[in-house]
């Protein structure tokens, strides 16, 4: 087991290294290098080459590429994520400031996913190949197929324009006004949640169908347990293991998924920060966003691998 853990951790670090090179390379390809951005922001007239050279030295752009990469990585590891070109704020402070908001959206969307996805998945598995199953399966595909922005537009039209139930945009901090906070995140989390619900219900369905075919379920039925007890206490628990993993894996993609929702609803979270950074070529922020999302996905994948390795010895032998 120790060898397995070590191998997985080293492998993840190696992929992280490749990811960082990719992101660093992207920074060299993107237009608007920091020098030009600073000059544009300061609105100075034409400047001589002296100033440009000074600025290049300041950003370390006059050094060889390998050195620039090493300096950047070292800084990132120490917590120096650079300074936003657009606002002049520390990128790390910006990130930490917005993290709780995106986290709230994530928790809300998981809640919606479970409320919608779990009953649908269980119902389809228990009434396999019935009209109910067909409805739920079709609904699940629809959940993952409807573009976030279109679902957003339709919901905003229905609940903010036609009937004024929810605010069309904006975010109210929970500490200021708890009810206002819940109202402001209700639609965004619902939209993210329906996407997750589609995936969740499909996984619950297939996982539960597999468990229901096992011997211990037959035993439970044979000893005269009521169907409700068989499903709830015997079948659900093992069926939930892969489901929990999926929920975990979803977090890695949530920051990416929150881009559109936060942009549409003007919620000042990580996604909106990333979109704005792309609009104004604020590369330090784009870089930090990409790295953090990739780190997240890698960390969760690693955790899942280790968990599976601990639960199932066969995984440790095969790669």
């Amino acid at each position, binding site marked *: 087991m120790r060898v397995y853990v070590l191998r997985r951790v080293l492998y993840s670090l190696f992929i992280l290294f490749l990811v960082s090179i990719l992101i660093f390379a*992207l920074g060299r390809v*993107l237009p608007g290098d920091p020098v030009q951005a600073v000059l544009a922001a300061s609105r100075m007239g034409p400047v001589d080459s002296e100033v440009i050279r000074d600025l290049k030295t300041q950003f370390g752009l006059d050094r060889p590429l390998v050195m620039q990469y090493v300096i950047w990585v070292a800084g990132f590891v120490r917590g120096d994520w650079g300074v936003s070109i657009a606002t002049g704020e520390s990128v790390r402070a910006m990130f930490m400031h917005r993290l709780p908001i995106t986290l709230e959206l994530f928790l809300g969307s998981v809640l919606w996913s479970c409320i919608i996805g779990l009953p649908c998945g269980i119902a389809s598995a228990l009434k396999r190949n019935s009209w109910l199953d067909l409805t739920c399966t079709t609904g699940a595909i629809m959940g993952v197929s409807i*573009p976030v*922005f279109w679902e957003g*537009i339709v919901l*905003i039209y229905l609940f903010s324009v036609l009937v004024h139930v929810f605010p069309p945009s904006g975010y109210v901090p929970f500490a200021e006004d708890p009810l206002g906070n819940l109202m402001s995140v209700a639609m965004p989390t619902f939209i993210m949640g329906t996407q997750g619900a589609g995936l969740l219900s499909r996984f619950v369905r297939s996982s539960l169908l597999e468990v229901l075919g096992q011997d211990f379920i037959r035993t439970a039925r044979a000893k005269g347990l009521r169907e409700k007890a068989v499903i709830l206490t015997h079948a659900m628990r093992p069926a939930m293991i892969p489901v929990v993993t999926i929920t975990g894996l979803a977090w890695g993609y949530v920051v990416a998924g929150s881009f*559109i929702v936060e942009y549409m609803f003007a919620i000042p979270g990580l996604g909106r920060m990333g979109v704005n950074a792309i609009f104004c070529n604020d590369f330090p922020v784009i870089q930090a966003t*990409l790295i953090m999302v990739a780190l997240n996905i890698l960390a969760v994948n690693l955790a899942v691998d280790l968990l599976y390795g601990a639960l199932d010895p066969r995984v440790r032998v095969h790669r």
Partner: protein
Amino acid sequence: MRSPSGAWGTLLRHRIALAGMVLIGALVCMAAFAPLLAPCDPNEQDLYHVLEGPSKSHLLGTDDVGRDLLSRVIYGSRVTLAMGAASTIFSATIGVLLGLVAGYKGGVWDMAIMRLTDTFMCMPALVMALAIVAALGPGVTSVVISITVLAWTGFARIVRGQVMLVRELAYVEAARALGASGLRIMFRHLLPNVTAPIIVTVTLALGGNIMLESTVSFLGIGVQPPTPSWGSELRVGYSYLEVAPLFSIAPGLMITLAVLAFNFLGDGLRDALDPRLRAEGPGPG
């Protein structure tokens, strides 16, 4: 391998897949016959009639510069479907080639290609797509390039896995014993036997790529006006949601239908082509 009629039969009995096929057929016809179907010129402005609701002359109303919305939605299918198809063809080609090489050659080739795949897979697709489009400058070509760069990984993974399953089979060994070259084995013997998962992945990728294209265009750095694409249409329409809801809801509905159609079909194809999931047992052959 089962005979195609077996898979066809399953597919036709699969109600969801059938719905997907009908929808795709309708969308392709719409794109192909756009000039015949569209009631007006999609770029003809009429500044006396802007943001109007549905009427007899404009079934879906007009946009912010008085262009006929229905015609723009019909013409939009051309750009959106063409971009989805182009990026899928390019990414499938790259992914299948890399997957073939990784699966057949193994060793260092497999190591290098799979590490590259893993690296791209843990990058968030939307953020990367936005960054690449921003780097290349907005426009149809940059969107297709950015999607291609991101979408090949799925193909590489699936083809590699399938090739590893079939490469040890007797007929491949026989071909090798007869002196067939590596290239010949890869393209003549391995590729035809891994087509089923490729077809499924292509179908699902089409839906995913259309979604990604629309999202990038919705954020305003994809397809640029006046070219009608559903995503860019939706972007402009969104700012007039209160006065002209159809302006954004109609193109959005088309995107949803297109993505849904490919996902429905992909789902059905998976059931039809994957013998393990088929309910009625193995077919003839």
